[in-house]
């Protein structure tokens, strides 16, 4: 068409005008660290696996999850999910039920029979793992993934360590535990049960191990110096919980007093309740000072367990205890008041913490032991080259998740050490804090709560208390994730740019700025729901 000069123009010809030259600052994409990931002691990429779960691709989600933690079904039950406390969604309505989705994924994997990914090739190195608890099993798993041969020594007759002996079955059914343990063993881990290592150096030498990871746990119950009559029945919590796994259930009597304020104390009390007893927890401080997780205490109280606050046990008799009342001083420490009372008790269970049996380390040079635990470096290696340690036997918070995290970290460092390299953890990214988000874009979606077992059955049976989400609930819950700090391809930047200066690269490939046209208005940053874009001053 012969077009009139100047008045009539060819379509889209403004592409010749590069408005990017107007810009004084430019948007750039970045990946921030989501608070949940930052918080996870096991180092899970929580947001990463939720992403797959959101589209219903549970197997991918599970595979993504198990890159860091091979025990989602266990985690989904016993992890204290501090990630949820860190979850930004908590400031919006309620945190994402990360733990419940993990629970679902773990169960789904067991139901579907998904197997862990075996190593692509064998390294020829041989690593000794001592202890089949969460830390040792986690290390065994990760070391296998690196292609190293793993031989695992366990003093006891079964795998699981504290996951078995420290956690009652109403919280973690044993078939679940065994299935997830077996799945690791199936990767080619040589397991030696009932094989206590007494001398680590000797065992390593005999087995020609290239490195060792020790995770023997803390199994020796602490005994308080309580004057007790001969007839008084006193048992430590770990022994009690361990005996629950055997054929002969302990005889505790009707009135069971549990002394302590940690999670173990609660576990013991709830176990006793299920055995028909009337447990009473005696704790020297107040509820808000109690180290046990509040939800556990709450569940215990629901089940009819009583707690006697601000009390210490002074003396144990055959069927009673002498209690001294305490008062908190200005610093919050309990101080004796000199006021006494007597309570009836058929047995006393001490849940005052555990010590580590460090016997196997005797004679190992260069070790440093402080407060009954072995010091390790940032690479989880003890003072003796080639011997690494983790879990409850090193200075750290003692729980399953921390132990699993230790196992993973240690495995990475062992792998590096075996290659003569140093494993360098990725640089910590800046955290996607709540203020980086534009939460308008998230639909209102209150948390889905997992079903709870009815109270009568909780009081009388060892059936699992907390049920699982069904598929639709798990999907819903996964989709509540805000994807803090990481692009989830919501297309907002692509849509809101008045200059079409965002190029959409297609599913899975995210976006790219076209700086030829980007004027630097910053709308993409302001309207990014998850804080995955930031403005940077243009160098002029």
């Amino acid at each position: 068409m012969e077009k009139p000069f100047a008045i009539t123009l060819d379509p889209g010809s403004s592409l010749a005008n590069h408005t990017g030259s107007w810009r004084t600052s430019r948007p750039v994409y970045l990946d921030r660290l989501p608070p949940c990931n930052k918080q996870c002691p096991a180092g899970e990429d929580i947001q990463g696996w939720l992403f797959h779960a959101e589209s219903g691709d549970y197997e991918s989600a599970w595979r993504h999850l198990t890159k860091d933690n091979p025990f989602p079904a266990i985690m989904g039950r016993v992890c204290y999910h501090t990630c949820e406390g860190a979850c930004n969604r908590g400031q919006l309505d309620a945190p994402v039920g990360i733990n419940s989705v993990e629970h679902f994924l773990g169960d789904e994997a067991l139901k579907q029979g998904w197997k862990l990914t075996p190593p692509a090739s064998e390294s020829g190195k041989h690593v000794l793992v001592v202890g089949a608890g969460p830390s040792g099993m986690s290390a065994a798993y990760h070391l296998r993934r690196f292609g190293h041969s793993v031989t695992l020594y366990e003093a006891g007759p079964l795998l699981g360590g504290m996951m078995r002996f420290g956690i009652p079955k109403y919280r973690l059914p044993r078939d679940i535990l065994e299935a997830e343990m077996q799945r690791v063993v199936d990767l080619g881990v040589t397991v030696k049960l009932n094989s206590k290592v007494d001398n680590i150096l000797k065992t390593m030498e005999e087995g020609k191990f290239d490195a060792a990871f020790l995770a023997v746990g803390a199994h020796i119950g602490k005994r308080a110096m309580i004057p007790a009559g001969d007839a008084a029945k006193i048992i430590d919590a770990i022994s009690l919980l361990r005996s629950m796994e055997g054929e002969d259930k302990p005889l505790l009597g009707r009135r069971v007093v549990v002394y302590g304020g940690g999670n173990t104390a609660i576990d013991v009390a709830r176990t006793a309740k299920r055995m028909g007893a009337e447990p009473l927890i005696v704790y020297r401080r107040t509820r808000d000072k109690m180290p046990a997780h509040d939800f556990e205490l709450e569940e215990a109280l629901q089940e009819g367990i009583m707690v006697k606050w601000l009390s210490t046990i002074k003396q144990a008799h055959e069927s009673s205890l002498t209690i001294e009342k305490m008062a908190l001083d200005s610093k919050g420490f309990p101080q004796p008041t000199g006021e006494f009372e007597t309570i009836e008790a058929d047995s006393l269970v001490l849940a005052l913490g555990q010590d580590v049996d460090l016997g196997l380390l005797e004679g190992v040079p260069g070790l440093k032991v402080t407060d009954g635990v072995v010091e390790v470096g940032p690479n989880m290696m003890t003072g003796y080259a080639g011997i690494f340690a983790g879990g409850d036997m090193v200075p750290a918070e003692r729980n399953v998740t921390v132990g699993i995290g230790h196992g993973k970290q240690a495995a990475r460092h062992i792998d590096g050490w075996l290659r003569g390299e140093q494993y360098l953890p990725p640089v910590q990214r800046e955290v996607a804090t709540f203020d980086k988000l534009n939460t308008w874009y998230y639909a209102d979606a209150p948390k889905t709560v997992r079903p709870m077992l009815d109270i009568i059955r909780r009081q009388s049976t060892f059936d699992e208390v907390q049920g699982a989400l069904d598929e639709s609930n798990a999907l819903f819950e996964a989709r509540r994730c805000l994807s803090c700090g990481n692009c989830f391809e919501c297309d907002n930047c692509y849509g809101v740019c008045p200059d079409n200066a965002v190029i959409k690269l297609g599913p899975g490939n995210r976006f790219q700025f076209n700086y030829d046209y980007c004027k630097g208005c910053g709308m993409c940053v302001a309207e990014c729901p998850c804080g995955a874009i930031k403005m940077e001053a243009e160098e002029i």
Partner: protein
Amino acid sequence: MLKQTEGSHAVAEAVGLCRPEVICAYPISPQTHIVEGLGEMVKAGEIQDCEFINVESEFAAMSVAIGSSATGARTYTATASQGLLFMAEAVYNASGLGLPIVMTVANRAIGAPINIWNDHTDALSQRDSGWIQLFAETNQEALDLHIQAFKLAEEVSLPVMVCMDGFILTHAYERVDVPTQEQVDAFLPPYEPRQVLDPTDPVSIGAMVGPEAFSEVRYLAHAKQMQALELIPRLAEQFKAVFGRDSGGLTHSYLLDDAETVVVAMGSVLGTIKDTVDEMRAAGEKIGVLGITSYRPFPLDNVRAALQNAQRVVVLEKSLAVGIGGVLSTDVRMAMSGLQLHGHTVVAGLGGRAITRKSLRALFAKAVRGELGHLTFLDLDWNVVNKQLERERTTRRSGPAAESMLRDIGVIATGIV
């Protein structure tokens, strides 16, 4: 086919024969009968495939025309007087965008004071709008010019205004020869736009143009009118070949060969002038007439050629450039540049004032005698004017001039109004 019909209706029939596709209508006297006729023809199905749109103003009429023409539809509208002024912005826009719209202007005076009768002030106010402006002398020519106008507009991609004197032509019943559809189809091919809004070949029409290209755009508008200057006579010839009639062209000459005095004029008054000239010729006066058909583009060369042997020129025009005198005269005088002859401007027939042969004969005789001034207002009532001027000189609050003068004339006092 010969028929006795009203000028407006003849035009409506001609437009209908041109197969218009969109017609916009807004009523204003004396143009109304044209669109009324067209509306009826469209509604009755006599004109097929045509949208007749009753718009809410002349501004909208021209705007609808712009839209439809830019979309490739043969588009027609009609207006007059105040209506033309109300659409003025769109009038300039249509030509600026090069859209071949055809519009009839039933020439009428412009207020205030409001006046519905004929003169040329409305059309001439748009002389620089970029439109081609053709003036019809008779109803037959008005009819013929519309057929030529569509062809001309579409050839040069410019809008064309066909001007015909309000009431004098629009409302006059005369015998006209209405061509057949076959004849019109033979002359006027379907509209083939130079630019069109088309989803299969998108363009942006109506860009903002700055100093870097604006002069060039305006020059090109001028160049297109210069092309029209060459095209108009050719179309008149083609028209004659098909329809067998002399119609259109740039100018009409009458008894010019030996004329010492030449009267220049536009529109229907040419008929009265020719009658007067005939009388004077009979009395031995060497007088002739030059009728301007194409006012824009203005045929400078033709006018100059027509005048070069004359001794004096009387431009009789139905328009007044307040503050200087003539409008048409300015252009005629430009054509006379360098010629040694006397030029006279006569403003006549404003607001429908009758131009009589008697007055014309006296006027021309005066010109021949060399007694005519440069600027003459034909048949002006000096009594009324002088009274009003006196009133304004002596009284601060002299009141509205028009109403005062009507009182002087006695119209109000006698209860006519």
